[in-house]
């Protein structure tokens, strides 16, 4: 192989700019609040989230939890579910990303 320096082209594509999105303000407490447990419906995530629900029942009984499976597969946006949570809930736990 030659020791001469050569110029070559970069093979990577062009990424889009990233715009940082503001996150939702946090709650001061979960007491008396409704927390949605959003099931991604993937690889037994429902079984896992029901254990999270049981934990709240035992350790933070003042928190109301709602187990909510996504309407369809996790690959599809689910505005109906998001609207419901915004209208009736205060926070969400989404799982399980495998």
């Amino acid at each position, binding site marked *: 192989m030659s020791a001469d320096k050569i110029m070559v082209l970069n093979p990577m594509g062009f990424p889009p700019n990233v715009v940082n999105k503001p996150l939702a303000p946090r709650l001061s407490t979960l007491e008396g609040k409704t927390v949605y447990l959003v099931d991604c419906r993937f690889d*037994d995530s429902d079984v*896992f989230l029901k254990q999270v629900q049981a934990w709240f029942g035992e350790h933070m009984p003042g928190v109301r939890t709602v187990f909510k499976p996504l309407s369809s597969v996790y690959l599809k946006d689910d505005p109906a579910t998001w609207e419901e949570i915004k209208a009736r809930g205060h926070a969400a736990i989404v799982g399980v990303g495998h």
Partner: protein
Amino acid sequence: MTIEAQYGVPTVAMHTDKFDRVARSVAAVNGMSELRQVFVPQPVMGKTQAELRAYVDGRDPLTGRPVMQEVVEGLTAPFDGRGVGTIEYDRSTPRLVEADTEENLHRLFMESRWTDYLPIVLPTEERVAAMLAATRRKPDEVVGRMRPTHFREAWEYTVEKVAVNAVMAGARPEYFPVILALAATGVSARGSTTSSMAAMAVVNGPIRNEIKMNAGTGALAPYNHANATIGRAYGLLSQNLQGGSVPGLTYMGSQGNNYAYNSITFPENEERSPWEPFHVQHGFRPTDSTVSVFSGCRATAYTLGIREKHWREHVRNMLRGMDPHIPPVFVIDPITARQFIDRGGFTKKDALIDWVYENARMPAAEFWDYQLVQNYIYPRATFGEEPWATKLKAAPDEMVQMFKREDIHVVVVGGETNGYWRIVGATYAKTVSVDDWR
């Protein structure tokens, strides 16, 4: 991420620890690097309630902190200011790599994960220019956008960027229109899925013979320069133009997939097939040159010919061996294609597809219990999507169809040294004109 950013609901995402890097990376490229994320051990799948309760009661394997403490704090602890503003980050890719010796550049390309770890051809300006001369398209013309998974951002690429990857793969300039057409599909041959899927590319029309592709003996590899390097270029351009295919970050295939080395790239043997070519089935003329891409390739079943007495049972057995989430593509040697006519009466591909659709069946209870059916089909059924919603009403022992008819395909390839043929589990994505990229 949607519920947090668009609906303003404080959210914690829970993942398994194997997905640490990818989960944080996906959040970052979606502009949510401060997204609250909590991790539990892998796997969740198949664990008992008691085992999963132990995860919940236990500690985050990455931080060592109690899982539920992190969850509660994730919903209640205020941000320190980093996650609440709107900031735009410019990202760009330089056209050139800093000049260096060939040896150092080969090392740089490998360490940057721009290769498939086989030797590459360095994309000098001269080589890239020769590739670009094989199309009338301008170097700076945008060809498409691609991403390794639904959750990541799509990256954009130009004709020149595709040419760079074509050179690296060792492709000759006359293959470039096929490679551009593959890039134009926007379908990645380097999907990030844990299932380790590969792509399949089927070339039809006059271009096959113009560039001396092999549809005969040994067509599926590794015995033809065009088949080999076009397929390799599809893989390299996918991983580089979509922004990478790095294990643990932009690639999560648990086992990997040897098919990914050249994406099962071959031309249909139109001359020896008794049926109409694949691209004609999809609305193109026989004189058009096209490439058709499939994804999800992992499973293969094979046999020799079809027997006079029990071929139906044999083919049913092959179909029952496929995962019902991914439909079957019959990849048939011309000898067996003619046997399907002689013994099955399938004078058209459509007739064979009808038979497959009707005969690929299993008990409903078994069908719905497949993990991938649970993950990807059952939620759609419960959402009312047909034909799954109707199928969900079947009694447990009722024999239900495993696949949708429109998802079943047939391609003819092979050199007639014998009648071996196979069923590849693969999802047809699209057929793209090669002529548009000449």
